[in-house]
């Protein structure tokens, strides 16, 4: 087992140490976005919480667009080459199945939509994703090989 680095709410972490595993635990409506440069072996992950920044709020990587930009900048600053970066994403679930509550809380879906828009704007191709549904996910990115996995409650870790 490698050196686990937890990527908490609104955090963005980058590593180039082969022993490290970047992990965002128990994502519900939040997104875990992973980036990896297979040549320089730089890996990074952001744990985004909200689709957009409202006025009066302090900019932070917890907002999808800022989170993706921060992650991209940090990747490049640590030696990744933008054109080589592999981007994958998981999370964005809708945890509430109750009808009346669901409508006002489809934050998971809004997070995923916001991320897709940002990727398009930045001309980033999303290599793989596992979003939506109504299930929590733990997302793990292994720095050594760039393997990214997803695990759900009662399930086995599988490759994304």
């Amino acid at each position, binding site marked *: 087992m490698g050196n686990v680095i937890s990527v*908490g*709410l609104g955090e963005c972490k980058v590593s180039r140490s082969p022993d490290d595993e970047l992990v965002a635990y*128990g994502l*519900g409506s939040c997104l875990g976005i992973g980036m990896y440069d297979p040549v320089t072996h730089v890996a990074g992950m952001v744990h985004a*919480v*909200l689709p957009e920044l409202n006025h009066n709020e302090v900019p932070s990587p917890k907002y999808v667009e800022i989170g993706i930009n921060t992650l991209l900048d940090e990747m490049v600053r640590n030696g990744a080459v933008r054109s080589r970066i592999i981007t994958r994403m998981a999370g964005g679930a809708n945890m509430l199945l109750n009808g009346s509550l669901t409508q006002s809380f489809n934050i998971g879906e809004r997070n995923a939509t916001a991320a897709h828009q940002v990727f398009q704007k930045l001309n980033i191709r999303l290599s793989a994703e596992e979003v939506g549904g109504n299930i*929590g996910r733990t997302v793990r990115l292994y720095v050594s090989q760039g393997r990214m996995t997803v695990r759900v409650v009662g399930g086995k870790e599988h490759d994304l």
Partner: protein
Amino acid sequence: MVDQPHFEDEKALSVWSALAVEAMKKAAEGFSGMIGQQLSITQPEVKMLPFTEIPNALGGPEAEAAGIYLRCDGDIPAQFMLILPYEKAFEICDMLFERPIGETEQLGSLERSALAEVGNLTGTFFMNSIAATTGLKLLPTPPAVMVDMVGAILDIIVATTGGVSDSVLVLKTAFQFNDREVKADFWVIPDQKTLKKVVANF
């Protein structure tokens, strides 16, 4: 920001403590009515906790748990979450269905609906108690039950409060039924404006 009361304020905490004690008494009455037997709830211990500490208090963000969630609209918007680690949820089901301890091993639809009722009763009695004390109007939503990772369940609150550093009000209490006791934590997350209003109307 400066003139808003914070959870850390002693006055706010004492007001909410008083409300919580009253509310839990009422909730126990409601339960007893539901199951036709005397169920009591011990006097809650009330404290404030930074939101980021909740996952750790429940065994980590990947730990599995059952969450019962209600929202309330009206004069004082607030959220209410009863969150139970798996084993506690099993214990509560054993107790409610009068099963031998350890018999409940999974949360099927029957167990989930019993848990929803537990959250519903406690939540609505809590809200009723606040309404009665302050004269403010509260409209609770039906409960939603989630069985998943702690982090995923809590995302609901994170996403709606938008906060990473906000504090929440925690009511630690225990359900007692015959000679059994199950400890449980309730998390009450009033909006900032709600805090102010409740304290002002107390």
